[in-house]
């Protein structure tokens, strides 16, 4: 169980803001010609390093603008860090926003395959999991309806089912778990616990310290892009809540 699943090595992320946001060629050229193209650097992350071992559930806490979401995006390879490297040994399923890969005009069934393909799964694998996803989402006959007719709760249930039932090796979660009605919330919470105990490595961002205390084994505390503290859940949470 000591195998590193995610290695984060000296990751820094710089955002450059042009003083005016330039979206047209004309603006770019005129600003460049006038020499007014100045940038403001903003380091969202500075020299962040930590490792996550296989099967661990690591919480990430910190105030607004601490760099939590940026870090998750870098780990999910959506963003490329300005400096440093992230090495992941496994298939990542990012749950940054549920249902982001859905197409409203397709049916639920078609969306399962589309979303599954986006997450990197094969056809055979998705076919074998299809029934399980359908059962878990409790959509029943609605599965063959275009999802533009779904309620938001149904959509979330479907998205959650796809993301968690495929047994990801690394699950990246940004503030979720409040999905669907109370019964489904309980079910999804149970499913998350099951995943975590079943060997899935989880990175979890939450403002809910209670949740972090319950679910995580270790916690990273980010502050202004720096790792303020990294360690045992109780220790960091106690320090954080002070």
């Amino acid at each position: 169980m000591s195998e590193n699943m995610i290695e984060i090595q000296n990751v820094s992320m710089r955002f450059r803001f042009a003083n005016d946001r330039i979206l047209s060629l004309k603006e770019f050229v005129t600003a460049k010609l006038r020499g007014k193209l100045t940038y403001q650097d903003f380091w969202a992350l500075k020299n962040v390093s930590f490792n996550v071992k296989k099967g661990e559930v690591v919480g990430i806490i910190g105030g607004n603008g601490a760099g939590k979401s940026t870090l998750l995006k870098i780990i999910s390879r959506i963003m490329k860090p300005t400096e440093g490297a992230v090495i992941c040994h496994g298939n990542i399923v990012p749950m940054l926003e549920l249902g982001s890969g859905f197409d409203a005009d397709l049916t639920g069934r078609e969306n399962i395959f589309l979303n599954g393909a986006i997450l990197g799964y094969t056809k055979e694998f998705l076919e074998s999991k299809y029934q399980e996803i359908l059962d878990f989402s409790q959509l029943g006959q609605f599965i063959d309806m275009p999802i533009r007719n779904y309620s938001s709760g149904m959509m979330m249930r479907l998205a959650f089912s796809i993301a968690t039932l495929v047994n990801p090796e690394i699950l990246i979660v940004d503030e979720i778990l409040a999905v669907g009605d109370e019964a489904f919330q309980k079910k999804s919470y149970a499913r998350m616990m099951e995943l975590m105990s079943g060997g899935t490595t989880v990175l979890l961002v939450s403002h809910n310290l209670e949740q972090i205390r319950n679910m995580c084994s270790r916690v990273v505390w980010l502050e202004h892009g720096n790792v303020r503290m990294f360690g045992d859940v109780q220790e960091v949470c106690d320090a954080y809540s002070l």
Partner: protein
Amino acid sequence: MRKLLKRGKYNSISDGKQAVSDQINLKKVCAVILLGYIILAFLFYILAGEQLHFRSSRGNVKMPVPNFGTVEMVAGAKVEQTFIPTIQRFKQVSVTWGTYGRHNKGTVLIELYNLKDNSRILSQTVDVSKLTEGAITTVASEKYLENLYGVPLLLRITSPDSVAGSAVSPMMKTDAEPKAGQQLYLNGKAVNGVLAFSAEGQDYIWLGLHYWKFIAAGGILLAAYLLYILMRTKRKKKSVLLNALVAMKKYRFLIYQLVSRDFKTKYKRSILGVFWSFLNPLLMMTVQYYVFSTIFKTDIAFYPVYLLTGIIMFNFFSEACGMALTSILGNASLITKVYVPKYIYPLTRILSSLVNLAISLIPLFVVGCFSNVPFTKSFLLFPFFLLCLAVFSLGLGMLLAAGMVFFRDVQFLWSVFSMMWMYATPIFYPESILPDQFKFVLQINPLYYFITFARTCIISGISPEPIAYIQSFLLALGMLLVGAFVFKKTQDKFILYI
């Protein structure tokens, strides 16, 4: 310390941590590639047929536009024209007649002499009564004559039996600049100007002469490269081919899903659905056919097919590029949430358009059958140019998609530009209507090449010259490389701008 973000070492899906690269039987793939190469080489050899070896000679003498008669072809009159052909395989000469606007009788004799050894090469007696004003008589050799390159020839026209008042006259162009070795004699007297005659034949194509040598050389290079890849893989090193194969295997299903999504949503709420894919070009062709066949009075052979080929290919191009243009911005919600290689987005848009194109080939085929286009084996070469067009569109699409992320102006510029491009491509007009000073527009227009060569395959029923394939391939590859380079250089910044 600026390292690249490394790709996860394992692509382990649920169970089994076997790397994808291990699942690929590289030896088998290499064998398939090599075999495919050999099959394609043979197939091309068969399909290209005669056009692989000979082309219409660059030394052909074109028929000038005559402006004057020579002499009346009565018995004893003699019109002679000397010339030196630079045609490797000489086939035929033609002469234009004037009739003085009356009905004539008798015969004329056309002869072609080799002045080097004074032998007669060709001769034909022509029945004058069948000639009309401006008629052209062609005297063709049964076999191609291969030893006339650079040999001075004499074209002689005489009449054994015509009488004045009912004889014809070969036409001439009085103000033509005679070329080296050309001289016109009327009744034995040298005069200025040239006879209205043409000489045609074929030249050998250097590429065709050495076709098998090229194929062998290419095959050896390919085999050496594959061997090199195999060696590298054995030492667990990455290579372009292996990476491409892994990506193909890994993202095949995703690409399939995205293409089928594009396709499903495109016609989702229309009644006729997929039917539109071939109804659309057909309707466009009908409208343009009626508009332009009345305005232009074109004399293009098989005009509906000519038109439809142009429409289908240009529609594909503009649809594919237009869709690729918005592929990154349109998928912003995905790009900011999940990692997928970004080139997948423009690629799938091109592929969806390609599916549409494949469907719209059906009406092309139907219209071709109805207008009695001689479908020959060269029709099978047509997909090559479609493929080149698709690769070209992919390159341009990637360039546009990348540009669009940073400057939203690109879409407005593109809509104007693609309209300009449409008019600069001979889709509904014949290329001959362009004035000389605008001919360069065609020469710098890659679409012109793709569409023209495709038309040669379909309408003329012969393969274009071998150089056409190389030209098209290089144009497509060049665009792809430029597009892919810009895309790759900028793709990490996309996320910051969408």
